């Protein structure tokens, strides 16, 4: 298994993970100018701008772009996150030249055509309406809006029905100009190409990019919610509920971040975790029960996700609160810590078992502002986490008295039961599932 090669081309950091296992080349382009830069009244701007560039690369019409990709045996996906916009794809090796030209046209020469912009907004509106069919997505949206109220993380990357009309072509073009400067890019390549070919490819992609030095402003640190808050997304005829619990987590640069990561794994990061055992294995309440601790530019949320039937919703929330409090108060046992360290360190093999995963991991480090070799030493750092560090990180970073419980379900059947099992509840909101601001 070959390691990654790191170099720069015209000031753009590049990671190459060569592998001749398959005649494919993966191209991952990250632009460090994500949705946290969306204006307060313009949620979704970054994503719409990136999608419009993808649909008007080099002045082509969208059907011509799609036909071209199919002819190459290639794919190209645009995705916006809070910190980055990604243009990721894979192509048959024999089509790499044509693929590179298309990608360069996307990055440097999108026409950002007015008709396509209008079409895209109509499509985005239809997608937001369709998203109302996902009870899980509704609960997650409600959680983020409430937990990160007033913070960029509380806004939807996809925008809302209320914000889409404000994303005018003028704003999109202005955003594109601001966001598309060479200093904001990082690129990872994986698959069947050598360093010389990789350098030539990247040069073709970035040589015509504007040479500006602007960087996206770092968002402020989010503030923890006041007390415990309940938000119900009311939808009729639900036999089941989708429950998200969220509280502030940690930042990857925190010295105790990996210690907290190990602790979160014990709590809800595997089938043997406390949460899964208590909710699914011992009680049969929910098919899944998970906790996650994502990372971004600043402190993100630790979230818990379960989906019990409506009758079990309140007891399930009560149980999760109890488990969370016990976790912070009493900490992990040595046996749990050892198990989680072994799992995380040994399973790291699956984070790097393909060239595209190795390249992607390196790109994540770059876009998070971490040292390029951050993940090269991940296993040693996980194995170095001690019990007192993990338990101290739990106490320092997690505050179960300040959290949000978001539930999608039929509100009239749930509200009083839920309010009765959340001690310290400071507010309850009920949102219609078809609200234009959700």
């Amino acid at each position, binding site marked *: 298994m070959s390691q990654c090669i790191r170099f720069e081309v015209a000031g753009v950091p590049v990671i190459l993970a060569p592998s001749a296992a398959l005649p494919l080349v993966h191209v991952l382009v990250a632009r460090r100018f994500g949705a946290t830069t969306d204006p307060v009244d313009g949620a979704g701007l970054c994503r719409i701008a990136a999608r419009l560039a993808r649909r008007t690369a080099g002045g082509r019409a969208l059907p011509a772009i799609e036909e071209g990709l199919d002819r190459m045996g290639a794919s190209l996906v645009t995705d916006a996150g809070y910190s980055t916009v990604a243009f990721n794809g894979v192509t048959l090796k024999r089509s790499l030249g044509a693929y590179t030209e298309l990608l360069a046209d996307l990055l440097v020469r999108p026409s950002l055509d007015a008709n396509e912009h209008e079409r895209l907004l109509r499509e985005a509106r239809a997608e937001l309406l*369709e998203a109302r069919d996902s009870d899980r997505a509704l609960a997650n949206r409600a959680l983020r809006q409430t937990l990160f109220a007033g913070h960029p993380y509380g806004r939807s990357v996809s925008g809302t029905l209320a914000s889409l009309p404000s994303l005018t072509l003028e704003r999109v073009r202005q955003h594109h100009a601001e966001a598309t400067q060479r200093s904001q890019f990082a690129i990872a390549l994986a698959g069947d190409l050598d360093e010389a070919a990789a350098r030539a490819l990247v040069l073709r992609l970035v040589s015509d990019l504007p040479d500006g030095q602007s960087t996206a402003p770092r968002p402020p640190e989010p503030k923890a919610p006041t007390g415990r808050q309940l938000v119900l997304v009311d939808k009729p005829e639900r036999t089941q509920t989708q429950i998200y619990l969220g509280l502030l987590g940690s930042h990857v640069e925190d010295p105790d971040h990996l210690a907290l990561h190990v602790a979160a794994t014990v709590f809800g990061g595997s089938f043997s975790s406390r949460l899964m055992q208590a909710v699914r294995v*011992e009680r049969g309440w929910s098919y899944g029960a998970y906790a996650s601790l994502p990372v971004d530019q600043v402190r993100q949320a630790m979230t818990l996700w379960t989906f019990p039937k409506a009758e079990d919703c309140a007891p399930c929330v009560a149980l999760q609160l109890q488990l969370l409090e016990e976790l912070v108060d009493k900490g992990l046992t040595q046996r749990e810590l050892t198990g989680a360290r*072994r799992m995380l360190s040994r399973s790291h093999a699956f984070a790097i078992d393909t060239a595209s995963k190795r390249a992607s991991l390196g790109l994540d480090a770059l876009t998070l502002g971490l040292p390029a070799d951050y993940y090269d030493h991940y296993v040693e750092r996980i194995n170095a986490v001690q019990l007192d560090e993990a338990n101290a990180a739990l106490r320092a970073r997690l505050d179960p008295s300040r959290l949000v419980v978001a539930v999608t379900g039929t509100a009239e059947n749930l509200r009083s039961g839920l309010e009765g099992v959340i001690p310290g509840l400071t507010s309850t909101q009920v949102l219609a599932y078809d609200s234009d601001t959700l």
Partner: protein
Amino acid sequence: MPQISNPLLKKRQVLVQTIAAQLPPACVPEYLGSVPFGAVLRVERWRYPNGLTLLSCEDDCAPVFSYHSWVRVGSRHERPTKTGLAHLFEHLMFGETAELGQGDYDRLLEEAGAENNASTWLDFTQYTVNAPAGALSLVVKLEAERLAHLQLVDEPVAREKDVVANERRYRVDDDIEGATSELLWKTAFVRHPYRAPTIGWMEDIEGFTTEDCREFFKAYYAPNNLCLVVVGDFPLRKLLELVGKAYGELPSGELPVEDLWPELPQSEERRAELTKPTPTEKLTLGYHGPALGDAEHGAVNLLIEVLCAGRASRLVRRLVHDEELATDVRAFVGPFRDPGLIEISAVAREGVTAERLLASIDDELERIKREPVASDELERAQRRTELGLLAGLDTADGKASTLGFYETLLGRPAAAFERVENWQRLTPSDLLRAARRFFEPQQRTVVCVRSQQEANT
């Protein structure tokens, strides 16, 4: 499986003799040959005296391996009132055994850095463990232990029934796509067991007894109904010895005769409707299609690509891009042992009716039966399938899934490559013939989802 070049055959014969010198005959596999799997790899077939099949594929591109157990039992083998048993049983396989307490199986694998999963479908049940290279002994031991000594007792069975009921609420009862699919198959099939959902009807899930589970286990979880697929970085001799020791003494089973009725041809269109709390209408069509082994399954796959794969495809371009009637259009042809359905589904935009979607879809289906597909369209579809095949083989797990699937369904583990090669040779005439055979309105079922909001207003 075709015989291979002599040097490898001789090498394998020596290997078998070496193992035979150390282990009892029941634990010694017979070498049945190998076939190429792509440009670089080979898949080798072994059979133990109790009927257990092992497919091995050495691939040292990463220090990991994937260990799959494919059991030839799926929801097609279930009887009325006992639907969902194969799937429930898949859940129960993670429970206690003679040597392992509740949760030990998962804990031991997790601590070894392994990930595990399982799935059940119409024709099979499969179990996956992906593990770092050093964990081979543990994985073989745990997988054989649960096959040999699973404990089925009342309390865990009752809890797992609750979990499955919750899974059903998640995937079907509160999920529009799941509910639509269930109604489509139930309406399209009258006799064949494909009419029942793999997860089972709720009343059947609630009604299972521990004895039902024991009978099912005894009937189907025998080594001669199982294929192990191991792909990745492992020492072959050690694998053969470990599998022989762990599984070799398990007795073969008398497999039940499959007692099912083939579906009769459908002679008129069937319609069904659902009303749901959703802002927009949805439409799903199901045409009776080819079995995976049908000579025209490949042509239908390419037709699906031409119609619905990517934004340049006919239906997506027309409904999503040009007419702006839909948010999404998808199509799928079932890869099943018996003839399944060709499904086409579309999500309407606000104010658009399912009938309006159907008119445009029908127009395109009539066109594809009337005019040959252009050579450029065909070529694009062929490139997409080539990319899809290769992209699915990036990981050891992806390779094991592909091998296990085609071995279980067609008895040819490397059939994925054969199929894609065959597809490259298909012509517009082949697609025209397949379109005329399958896209006949009288052999379809139409399911419309109405918006409860619209109904209320």
